């Protein structure tokens, strides 16, 4: 698996919905174990970028290369499923399956997609739920879990597919403030364990502390990027300064 090149490489990625241009040429290189945080105002295309990377929204133009193989242009169902197995995603609204308990939420995809046996998948799911601190909630249904707990189940669910890259789409934005930390702690641990992660977030202190690389996006382009401390403390671009001024000072 020691591919010499980057795990993920984007060049000139464009996405439009009708007239609306959401991504206007994104270039990115992400190496194994990197944590990239993407920040920017709402509507800047951050979420769409993540959705392009796992082909929930196929880009209209440009290239995405995952582990040395181009995935843009793939339309066969099998190829897309294969991409999505390697790229895990966690959503702002959790999107847990409400008719399944925590254990089933985490084990359903390995059983249906990877043909794992039920016992094996459940065992793995139990381990993962333990890792996110929910060993005592295996049998609970999502409606009986707090937002923070639901989001941790969602992280475990994505991890159950043994992804090589994890995408986090504003995963703490829908949480009550006191629940944010428990989710960020799980993500911090993942980062420490060497998971390759792309994190769209408004949590600037998390970005500063955990990210190897910070990307500031606005109006569908990358305005500025670099080491988090450098971008956050000494932004070069006026647009970055303005955004950070609004986000950091209050």
């Amino acid at each position: 698996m020691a591919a010499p090149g980057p795990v993920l490489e984007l060049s000139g990625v464009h996405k439009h919905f009708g007239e609306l241009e959401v991504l206007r040429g994104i270039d990115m290189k992400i190496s194994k174990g990197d944590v990239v945080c993407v920040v920017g105002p709402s509507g800047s295309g951050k979420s769409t970028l993540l959705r392009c990377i796992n082909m929930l929204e196929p880009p209209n133009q440009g290239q995405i290369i995952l582990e040395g193989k181009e995935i843009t242009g793939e339309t066969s169902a099998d190829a897309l499923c294969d991409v999505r197995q390697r790229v895990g995603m966690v959503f702002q609204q959790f999107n847990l399956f409400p008719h399944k308990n925590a254990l089933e939420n985490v084990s359903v995809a390995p059983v249906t997609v990877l043909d794992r046996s039920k016992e094996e998948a459940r065992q793995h799911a139990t381990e993962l739920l333990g890792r996110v601190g929910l060993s005592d909630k295996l049998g609970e249904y999502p409606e009986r879990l707090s937002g923070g707990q639901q989001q941790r189940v969602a992280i475990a669910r994505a991890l159950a597919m043994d992804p090589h890259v994890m995408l986090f789409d504003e995963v703490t934005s829908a949480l009550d403030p006191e629940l944010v930390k428990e989710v960020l702690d799980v993500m911090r641990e993942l980062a420490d364990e060497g998971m390759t992660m792309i994190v769209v977030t408004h949590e600037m202190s998390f970005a500063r502390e955990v990210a190897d690389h910070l990307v500031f996006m606005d109006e569908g382009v990358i305005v500025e990027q670099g080491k988090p401390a450098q971008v956050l403390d000494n932004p070069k671009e006026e647009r970055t300064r303005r955004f950070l001024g609004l986000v950091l000072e209050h």
Partner: protein
Amino acid sequence: MDVIVQQFFDLNVMRDNFGLIWDGFQQTLLLSLIAGGLSLVWGLVVALLRQLPGRAAAPIRWLTIAYIDSFRGIPLLLILLLVNGSLGALNGDPLPEWLAVPNWFGEPYQFWYGIFAITLTYGAYMAEVYRAGIEAIPSGQMEAARSLGMSHGQAMRQVVVPQAVRTVIPPLLNDFIALMKDTSLVSFIGFVEVVQAGQDVYQVTYNVSALTLGAIFFLICTIPLARVVDWLIARQQARYQRGGIDGPTPTETTSGPLGGTAGA
């Protein structure tokens, strides 16, 4: 007053013909349960075909829409007469006899023609109910399933349909009540179910009490079903109001081909 009571509720007529009416009602029940079960399955198949993604599936989607629109727009009686008038004529060429003039499980071909016509019609109704249920599931559910590598079919099977079916049980039961009443149309092609049995008695006695007895049999089934529907809806709404899992109930309650739902 006595004359009226005598006309509708002549206990002697009811008692003397109870066996005939009961036999007829058993046929009604059998028609309802078989056609109802088949409609439930067929309707789900049609709804899923209609939801197939991608350009390649466009002709299939188009066909299912044409089917649903047609069979919801034509009276069940007319469908029944079309089936009855054509299948027999196609016997031997091109249809084999076991299909053209079915005599399965000892039931006459009229029974099975009725099953065909009712299933075709109510399958179209129920497909629309399922569709409302499927479309009421938030798109994030499908996305989450797809993001885990599930195919469209796997996501439907594991995630969307199990949730959708729960929300559409009340409207499906409403359709079943309408279906049950519409089985009486099969009498038009010479099948003796409860209405025809009552009518046969009437033509001998010139008294409608046997028909009244048939109506009572219907009500014994349909009124409790209607109460079950109400109870299920109330339960779902309570659950939804406290932010539970079932989500909004699709409110569409389709009416039967003759325009009536017995619900509520």
